[in-house]
């Protein structure tokens, strides 16, 4: 009798289980404007100049670069060059030569469906660099977080403006000038890079001290884990923005943190925030681990997510006592 009940429950679970998944898939019938933009970037030849704007504390900074693409290859040129060849990502600087950031065979971590956390709506038309655009707004909790200008014919992304939760502009990418349809002259495929890119890591192979939950605050889902140079990168996304969490064992040496860092606090701990043209970052330490969280997210959301990261304090009270004694002695004698 009991066995029949168990079998019955198992059958019921199998029947009910897929239902939410089916519902979730049904909701994703809408097209993702960023997917459209990615496909257009891979298929459309273009060449132009771009202005980047990003907020560093309260200052809005600006820079200009050239970008061109053809047949799935992209090249951005500024102080150094960044290149995308299919899924492969490389950077070049005169000092370091070509470095592989992402090998072609690694594929993409992907991302959750955009409409799980955001509302997407069309917001009329506009013109960017002389081309008509369809404007798409991506909203969270009723606030526009991203405004995308997709070229009307090709869906190439010509302008992207990102806002924080209060509607303040955080970052912008704008084509000032662009030629669409003319195959750009691309540099030859770079030689073998000096430095190899990361390798995939199954989550079960992530060291226990660096494991993190599958979901962080603000709806970020874990998509993958990678390892390079002994450092594990956990990749999260909410469908619009991406985050990478790096954890390193040891005490924090603040000497090499970015000069433009901003001191802040995270759950009562000191933390250091910084900005770069592509996003925001924050570094903090807890126990024996140094955490670095970076992402193309607004600063306020990054802080919220960072606060939800599981910290691994020292497990041993004796260890903490010994380290405290060592710190005390080193404050008088210097390191020994």
């Amino acid at each position: 009798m009991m066995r029949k009940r168990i079998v019955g429950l198992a059958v019921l679970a199998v029947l009910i289980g897929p239902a939410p998944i089916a519902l979730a898939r049904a909701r994703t019938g809408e097209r993702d404007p960023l997917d459209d933009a990615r496909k257009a970037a891979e298929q459309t030849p273009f060449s132009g100049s771009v202005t980047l704007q990003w907020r560093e504390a309260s200052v809005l900074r600006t820079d200009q670069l050239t970008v061109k693409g053809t047949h799935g290859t992209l090249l951005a040129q500024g102080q150094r060059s960044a290149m995308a060849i299919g899924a492969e990502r490389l950077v070049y600087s005169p000092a370091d030569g070509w470095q592989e950031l992402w090998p072609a065979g690694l594929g993409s971590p992907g991302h959750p469906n955009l409409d799980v956390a955001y509302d997407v709506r069309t917001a009329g038309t506009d013109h960017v660099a002389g081309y008509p655009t369809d404007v798409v707004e991506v909203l969270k909790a009723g606030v526009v977080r991203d405004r995308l200008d997709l070229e009307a014919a090709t869906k190439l992304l010509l302008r992207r403006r990102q806002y924080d939760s209060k509607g303040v502009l955080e970052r912008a990418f704008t084509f000032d000038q662009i030629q669409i349809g003319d195959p750009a002259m691309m540099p030859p495929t770079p030689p073998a890079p000096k430095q190899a890119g990361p390798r995939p890591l199954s989550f079960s192979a992530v060291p226990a001290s660096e494991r993190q939950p599958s979901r962080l605050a603000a709806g970020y889902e874990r998509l993958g884990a990678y390892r390079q140079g002994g450092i594990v990168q956990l990749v999260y996304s909410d469908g619009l923005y991406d985050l990478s969490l790096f954890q390193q064992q040891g005490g924090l040496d603040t000497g090499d943190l970015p000069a433009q860092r901003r001191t802040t606090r995270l759950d009562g701990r000191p933390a250091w925030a910084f900005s770069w043209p592509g996003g925001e970052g924050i570094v903090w330490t807890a126990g024996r681990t140094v955490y670095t969280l970076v992402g193309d997210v607004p600063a306020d959301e990054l802080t919220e997510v960072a606060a939800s990261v599981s910290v691994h304090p020292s497990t041993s009270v004796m260890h903490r006592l010994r380290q405290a004694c060592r710190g005390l002695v080193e404050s008088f004698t210097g390191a020994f």
Partner: protein
Amino acid sequence: MSTAAHPGDLLSALLDGELTAREEEDVRAHLETCADCQRELRLVTEGRASLRDLPPVDPPFGFYERLVRPRHRWARAGVAALAAGAAASVGIMALAAPREATVAPHVAQLVDAHTASASTSGDPISEITPAAAPVSWNR
């Protein structure tokens, strides 16, 4: 001059009235025949008179504190010993602790790693372009 059985310290005791009747009688009998002891008694008497005539003197500042200092000195020594013991314990604990490796996150590399992964899933143009921007992390 009689040299036998000089009373010595008994002369001072005689002046202080501390001798028994028998001792006093013996000392006085000796004094009648001993010129040295008579002179000594006279010197002791004069010395005492001189001392009594001296004016009273106030003790200098801190005299009483110095008088009682020995007890505080021991207390201080005790505290110092305890502090030394605590410092030694901290030192031993510190030496027992393995030196913890320090980490200086190479932010530029971590940002590059993030940019690369993010650009494979989002719009590649707007995601990869910032990687070419001139950022001086340690300007």
